[in-house]
């Protein structure tokens, strides 16, 4: 998981004159390079806005991987069966590893990992909104592994073709591992959906709980934002939020229906003329409320992160001491 390229909803309506003080010649060369399909590497000249938006996006993506490990990790101790426990631990380790890869990519743009962690634990940086919801049952963890990861893959496969070299390289590694997450999640959901009536009920209820966050996952419709336009021109953002949501619905709603499960949206259907899916507009006020701290788990997620940083601090300090060389006293 969980590359979430949505623009912070608090920022959507700011109109920037982002290029006002950029050197036009350097800007033209930069844009021509991207136009030719070449990658930008860390020490290349880049517009300030490009750097800023990439840091925001990659950092947010990294935080989402770390925080996403919490709702899923909830079920490690009670996974049904040893094989599923091993698999879930492997998946959660992958997600934390993804955060490491992403933080590294963001670091190449000049923000230190300490600064990113500080911004996460103080609530300054965002992470994917879906992880502010709890995983009530094992089935919730299964729905996350299948459908949230599915959404993340759509996003990450698109971004892997972006313009920033280190981000693309990180995403290539990430996408390889995501294919295991998706299969693992699907396998678990299929087991429940083809199981006993109790299991079917459990997975249907989890799907009902997760559907609104899944629809929120790609972020608000951003076709009209001029902000998006320049990010797409610079290949920072590779698809609009709506396009990714459509792609997700097109790939996964049929698979959900295949299992005899229902989607809790009476208006959900594919318009055969336009080829587009129609759905009830997600509740964007709820989205904004949760992203700004009002969700059921925001406070817990950050408190758990702070706790981990704080309790690990003396270990990190102690390890550092090994680097200092012993010098014989003078007198």
């Amino acid at each position: 998981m969980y590359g979430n390229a949505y623009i912070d909803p608090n920022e959507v309506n700011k109109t920037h004159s982002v290029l006002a003080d950029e050197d036009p010649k350097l800007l033209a060369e930069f844009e021509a390079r991207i136009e030719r399909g070449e990658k930008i590497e860390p020490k290349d000249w880049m517009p300030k806005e490009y750097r800023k938006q990439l840091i925001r996006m990659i950092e947010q993506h990294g935080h989402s991987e770390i925080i996403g490990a919490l709702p899923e990790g909830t079920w490690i101790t009670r996974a049904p069966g040893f094989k599923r426990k091993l698999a879930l631990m492997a998946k959660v380790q992958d997600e934390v590893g993804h955060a490491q890869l992403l933080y590294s990519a963001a670091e190449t743009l000049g923000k230190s990992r300490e600064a990113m962690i500080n911004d996460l634990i103080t609530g300054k940086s965002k992470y994917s909104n879906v992880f502010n919801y709890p995983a009530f049952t094992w089935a919730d963890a299964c729905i996350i592994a299948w459908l949230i990861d599915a959404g993340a893959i759509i996003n990450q496969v698109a971004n892997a073709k972006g313009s920033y070299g280190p981000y693309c390289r990180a995403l290539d590694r990430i996408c390889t591992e995501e294919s295991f997450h998706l299969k693992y999640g699907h396998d678990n959901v299929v087991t429940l959906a083809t199981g006993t009536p109790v299991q079917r009920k459990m997975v249907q209820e989890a799907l009902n709980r997760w559907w609104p966050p899944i629809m929120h996952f790609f972020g608000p419709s951003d076709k009209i934002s001029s902000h998006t336009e320049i990010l797409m021109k610079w290949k920072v953002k590779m698809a609009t939020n709506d396009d990714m949501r459509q792609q997700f619905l097109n790939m996964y709603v049929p698979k959900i229906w295949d299992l005899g499960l229902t989607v809790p949206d009476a208006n959900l259907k594919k318009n055969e003329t336009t080829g587009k899916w129609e759905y009830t507009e997600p509740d964007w006020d709820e989205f904004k409320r949760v992203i700004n701290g009002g969700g059921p788990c925001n406070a817990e997620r950050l408190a758990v992160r702070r706790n981990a940083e704080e309790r690990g601090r003396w270990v990190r300090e102690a390890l550092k001491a090994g680097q200092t060389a012993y010098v014989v006293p003078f007198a």
Partner: protein
Amino acid sequence: MIESLDPRVNRAAIELDNHIEPLSPLDQWETYEVFHQKKRGDQHMHVGIVHAANPEMALVFAKEQFGRRGLSANIWVVNTKHVFASTYEDADIFETTSEKIYREAGGYKVMDKINQYKKSQKA
């Protein structure tokens, strides 16, 4: 105290408003560049970086991060500050390389000459 759905979180007895001092610079140590060899005989390939306090720890993290599935035979780690690199601005130093066909096998077309010679002998 957090009351979580996660028994691990409950066991850790965490306060919700546990404000902490921000991490200071180098809290996450330095970075090491990681080079990974899939199997004996292959070249080591640069695969990314890890943060570590010392080379031994960098190797442990590199194994976790880049060797947890698929083939691995060997890993190198190099402190990032010890890497001396060319710059992309100087990439023009490579610009004429592809013109130097006298360095390539394809730069030598002997068959043309041989065929021409054979033809002239027959005449």
